[in-house]
């Protein structure tokens, strides 16, 4: 079993806090996810905050961001390029995070791939 992965959710406005609160309400998870907003930050400042939230390398960290072309993703990718043990998945949704908190002890690469799959699987047309 691998060391538990820390999840850091980085989004525009208050989306991350709302997603983490929803995960907590549904699962009771406490502490598996950290929420961050890009509000008021340039890319360098946001990268610094993400690095602080991740903690020291090489402890495993999976960063979830909202928009593939957004500042959160750019900042996270910049940190991940320099820090070992960090992967970034964009397009975060509630289904992705719910799956993640129950699989935090998977190897990091597998967890990143799993998050992508879970996020995609959560998007469906329903009712027809």
């Amino acid at each position: 079993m691998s060391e538990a992965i820390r999840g850091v959710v980085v989004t525009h406005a208050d989306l991350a806090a709302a997603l983490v609160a929803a995960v907590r309400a549904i699962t009771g998870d406490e502490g598996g996810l950290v929420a961050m907003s890009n509000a008021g930050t340039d890319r360098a400042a946001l990268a610094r905050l993400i690095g602080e939230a991740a903690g020291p390398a090489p402890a495993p960290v999976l960063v979830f961001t909202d928009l593939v072309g957004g500042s959160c993703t750019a900042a996270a990718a910049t940190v991940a390029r320099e820090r070992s043990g960090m992967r970034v998945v964009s397009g975060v949704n509630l289904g992705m995070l719910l799956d993640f908190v129950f699989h935090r002890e998977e190897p990091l690469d597998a967890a990143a791939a799993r998050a992508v799959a879970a996020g995609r699987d959560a998007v469906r047309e329903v009712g027809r």
Partner: protein
Amino acid sequence: MSVALYRIDDRLIHGQVVVGWGQSVAAGFIALVDDAIRASDWERELYRMGVPASVEVRFAGVAEAAAQAPAWEAEPRSGIVLTADIATMAALCAAAPSVRRVNVGGIHFRPGRKERLRFVYLADEEAAALRALAATGVTVTAQDVPTAAPVPLEAFT
């Protein structure tokens, strides 16, 4: 004029630019003017990553951008030109006299800067640099998203 927006934004290509302004002006290209990013394969790839395939992303140093500006403005497609800071935009304006309007879209807090607008923090010398740019005949306004009203320079410097 084909360049719909000359924008100073320290986040460069990000959500407000790609989704907000990109949709609003029906951007066919985004030109990112930054000497360091122009020289970095990895950063160019990073900034290209989230832009729809229908929007061409161009990278240029200041001198290249100044040389290209007349061609960009003659294109049938609408475009957005970005710099991360005031100094780069001022250098572009000095070298490309056809640039007559500058949008201050996002300059975030750093030590030494004061809040001028929710999305604009400036040190005194940066405010002076914007006023100097305006004194050359360039219209400078602040506006983060297309649905907001542009704020005249005098109201935030």
